[in-house]
């Protein structure tokens, strides 16, 4: 039974590793289909709970697969799920990154690098915009976001962790006085 579940996790998650182009959101639907409907590893409610937990967890949200692994086989389930989720895509990325760095210094490499920079910049900026809109765009949210950005831009060495903790405390305070 254990072998079956571990192999099952591998069979379901390894292809999703390669299918998750553009982030973890791409794998939710197929993962739900496999884990809830086809294999009935978890109930729909459990899947939804896992989804919510991942918002409060550090790390990529596709670690959701590891929560399913835990339910099936405990530690070994988490280990197999994690490896299946990240090893295949990382191998592809490694091969691309290595080929890329091998050509460093060639004119076309520099041109590619220069060309990718503004595209990447547009991506980050759009990401900020999208997430801000998703958050509902409230005033405390905007103020916190801009305040943190100013602090981090002014001080290059400032560690972000205290700012995140401050963010939690301020919002906690606002919640307590009913302003959130």
């Amino acid at each position: 039974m254990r072998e079956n579940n571990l192999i099952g996790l591998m069979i379901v998650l390894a292809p999703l590793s390669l299918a998750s182009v553009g982030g973890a959101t791409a794998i939710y639907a197929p993962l739900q289909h496999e884990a809830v409907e086809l294999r009935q590893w978890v109930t729909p409610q459990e899947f939804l709970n896992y989804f919510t937990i991942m918002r409060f967890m550090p790390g990529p949200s596709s670690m959701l697969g590891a929560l399913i692994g835990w339910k099936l086989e405990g530690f070994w389930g988490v280990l197999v799920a994690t490896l299946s989720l990240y090893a295949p895509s990382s191998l592809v990325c490694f091969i691309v990154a290595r080929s890329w760095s091998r050509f460093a210094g060639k004119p076309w490499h520099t041109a590619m690098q220069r060309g990718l920079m503004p595209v990447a910049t547009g991506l980050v900026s759009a990401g900020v915009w999208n997430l801000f809109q998703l958050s509902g765009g409230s005033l405390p949210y905007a103020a916190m976001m801009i305040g943190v950005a100013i602090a981090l831009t002014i001080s290059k060495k400032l560690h972000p962790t205290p700012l995140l903790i401050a963010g939690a405390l301020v919002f906690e305070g606002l919640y307590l006085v009913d302003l959130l």
Partner: protein
Amino acid sequence: MTSQNSSPHTKAVSLFELYSCFFWIGMMSFGGGLMPWIQREVVTRRNWLTNEEFLPGMAMSQVLPGVNSTNVAVYVGQHLRGAAGSITALAAILSGPFIMVMIAAVSYEFVLGIKFIQAAAAGVAAAALGMMLTTAISAIRSCGLNIAPICIMIVTFILIGIVHMSLVTVVLIMTPISVLLSWPRTIKASEDKPDA
């Protein structure tokens, strides 16, 4: 006259440093979006890579299969220390979440019920978004004041942020255009002086 993009790190980054850097990134970055953390740690604070070296890796990571943050970890690790660096950075960024996921699995029903925690999570998310804004500002500054990159930046922003086109499509369309537009400057720069 030889290499164009000499990295700022003349001394090698040890695997231990790499591990501890990415371990904390993996551990502290709540609510997804680890990219700003990685940029801040490896470019701004530690000077392991320049924005010129980091940002292309970031764009690639978003187009390649897999999670952006693990891909960037692999990219940065390979840039600094080759295969060993990639494996170290990947293991590091996942080991925190690996432990946390097991803790969550046994305690989530209790934790999710607390309203208190949800407010704190929103505060963390807002601050984390501020960090992403910082990355955007830093990236915009690195792009310089040329017409072509500014236009590419704005069009990319509009296509994703306002038109809501798929990220992969936008990158695949905008990159060739951007590379072509930056070609004359690249040739000029390589003739003028080696370090761009």
